[in-house]
């Protein structure tokens, strides 16, 4: 592998950004109109102005009623314990009084505050819970392969989160699956201007969730140097559509039926369930204590995005606030400058998991940089540890 010291320093490129929310041209699915405003901002305008939300809410009520009491559970709620799935579970139980099966795909990085939140939520709401944690030895190998292939080590988590609950739906003969936030809040893989609801199905799974790598592909990619049982990859495999269709499944997002508002919803789960936020590496904790608190390598994911695409989750979160008129642009710019170019302490732990050096990590990430962005390693500053850093799993 080529060490970074051998690379010629190239000038940093100024990225084109949305004049309203600040998202850059390297953001997935982004397009700008003649006013320089991005399609995700325009989608939001449409969402607020043109969707008939009372009618959508009524559709949800009818959907829930059509499945009530007919199967082993009224619905499956895939659950991480983050703000979206917690709100979804609370909303469904409180608004409709349904009996859900909560299904948790434990990616292996759950943080102490999250686990405490989960415990409190499950006890207070009174729900049945299934938690599944896949083979860690396999997870580590999958993370390395996905990082090398795509510069995105989260393949095992994203495929598992979206496929495993579908297997459970089949096993428990429960056809209704209700997810939280639709992807159209952040990206334009689905054009909500069609008034077509985002179906959380195999098409969506193959469109962007699995990064274009099926579990079968992954098996072939790692088989040369890694011993595993083919069944180890079953949790990451989407179940046969025929089986789901025979179950007459419906897999929808709550956010397709009610206007999604993360800030307000985070407040509701805090008030009603005692849900607690947490600090996340290289994020302004005071502003966004409710975002992505579920994973102790989230800081590494955000760091990779920064190296690959020239923006970080601070940009994504301030974009949401700018779009919602909750923040002024100078404040967003200040936060981005302060937090975005920092190396997360969790990188050390992550490198241990993957058994690679930081130079190797940087070289891998450099192979997946999205032009015209070029990362500037010299400008990276150290980030601060979060309170629970010493509690995270260490290899060795």
């Amino acid at each position, binding site marked *: 592998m080529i060490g970074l010291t051998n690379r010629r320093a190239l000038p940093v490129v100024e990225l084109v950004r949305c004049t309203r929310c600040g998202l850059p041209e390297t953001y997935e699915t982004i397009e700008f109109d003649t006013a320089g405003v991005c399609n995700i901002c325009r989608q939001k305008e449409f969402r607020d102005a043109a969707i008939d939300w009372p009618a959508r809410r009524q559709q949800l009520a009818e959907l829930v009623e059509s499945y009530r009491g007919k199967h082993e559970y009224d619905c499956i709620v895939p659950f991480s314990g983050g703000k979206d799935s917690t709100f979804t579970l609370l909303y469904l139980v409180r608004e409709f009084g349904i009996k859900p099966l909560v299904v948790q795909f434990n990616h292996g990085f759950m943080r102490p505050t999250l686990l405490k939140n989960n415990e409190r939520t499950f006890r207070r709401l009174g729900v049945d819970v299934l938690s599944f944690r896949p083979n860690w030895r396999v997870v580590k190998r999958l993370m390395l392969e996905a990082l090398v292939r795509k510069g995105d080590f989260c393949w095992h988590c994203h495929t598992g989160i979206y496929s495993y609950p579908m297997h459970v739906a089949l096993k428990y003969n429960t056809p209704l699956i209700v997810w939280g936030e639709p992807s159209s809040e952040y990206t334009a893989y689905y054009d909500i201007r069609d008034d077509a609801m985002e179906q959380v199905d195999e*098409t969506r799974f193959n469109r962007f969730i699995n990064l274009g790598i099926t579990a079968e592909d992954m098996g072939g990619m790692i088989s040369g140097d890694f011993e595993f049982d083919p069944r180890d990859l079953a949790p990451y495999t989407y179940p046969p*559509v*025929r*089986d*789901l*269709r*025979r179950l*007459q499944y419906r897999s929808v997002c709550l956010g397709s039926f009610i206007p999604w508002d993360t800030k307000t919803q985070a407040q509701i789960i805090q008030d009603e369930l005692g849900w607690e936020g947490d600090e996340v590496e290289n994020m302004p904790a005071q502003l966004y204590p409710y975002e992505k608190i579920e994973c102790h390598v989230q800081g590494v994911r955000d760091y990779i995005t920064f190296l690959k695409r020239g923006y970080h989750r601070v940009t994504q979160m301030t974009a949401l606030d700018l779009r919602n008129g909750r923040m002024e642009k100078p404040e967003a710019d200040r936060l981005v400058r302060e937090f975005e170019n920092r190396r997360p302490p969790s990188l050390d732990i992550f490198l241990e998991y993957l058994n690679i050096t930081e130079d190797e990590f940087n070289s891998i990430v450099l192979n997946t940089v999205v032009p015209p962005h070029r990362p500037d390693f010299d400008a990276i500053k150290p980030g601060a540890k979060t309170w629970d850093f010493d509690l995270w799993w260490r290899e060795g």
Partner: protein
Amino acid sequence: MIGIANLQIGNLRSVSNAVDSFGYDHCLVESAEQLDSLTHLIMPGVGSFHRAMRNVSALGLREPIRDFVASGRPLLGVCLGMQLLGSSGEEGENTVGLDLLAGEVRKFDRTRVESIPHVGWNSVELEADHPVFRDVRSGVDFYFVHSYHFRPADQTSVVGFTDCGEKFVSAVAQNNVVGVQFHPEKSQANGLRLLDNFCGWDGSC
């Protein structure tokens, strides 16, 4: 049970794969006795009108298919299968069709259509609402391969038109019978939606 007529003129696998993925039970239909157990019949087809009708007769299916339609159960004709619904066709030699829809099957006019056969993706402009086209928008593309087209005598049966130099009827429907000149099984999401709609349709409009 969804029946897929096997008229021994090719391409059934794409249709059966699609129906299978929707979760329905399905079978290939090669004899009249099988029609009794069906809820729906799909008649795919690639080949010539004359040869196809010869096979329909040889299999003893002409009257049983007409009886199937008379029973009110839904029938979908695809490509040549749509053409066979008509009264007659001129491909091969002048041949009598199933005569479920009045009209003739004619070759494209060479002076107007630059390239025959008409092959590839082309848009279907919908003229009427129909349950089999639910959630399919007017103007979206479907996949075509054909040199002949059906000209219905009754214009009220027209569901959609396509223009390939000559404007022709690409979708037709009357009561529980639907015909499409394109190949929904080869037309990605919109085509699959149409097939799925058909499999769930009770035959009423």
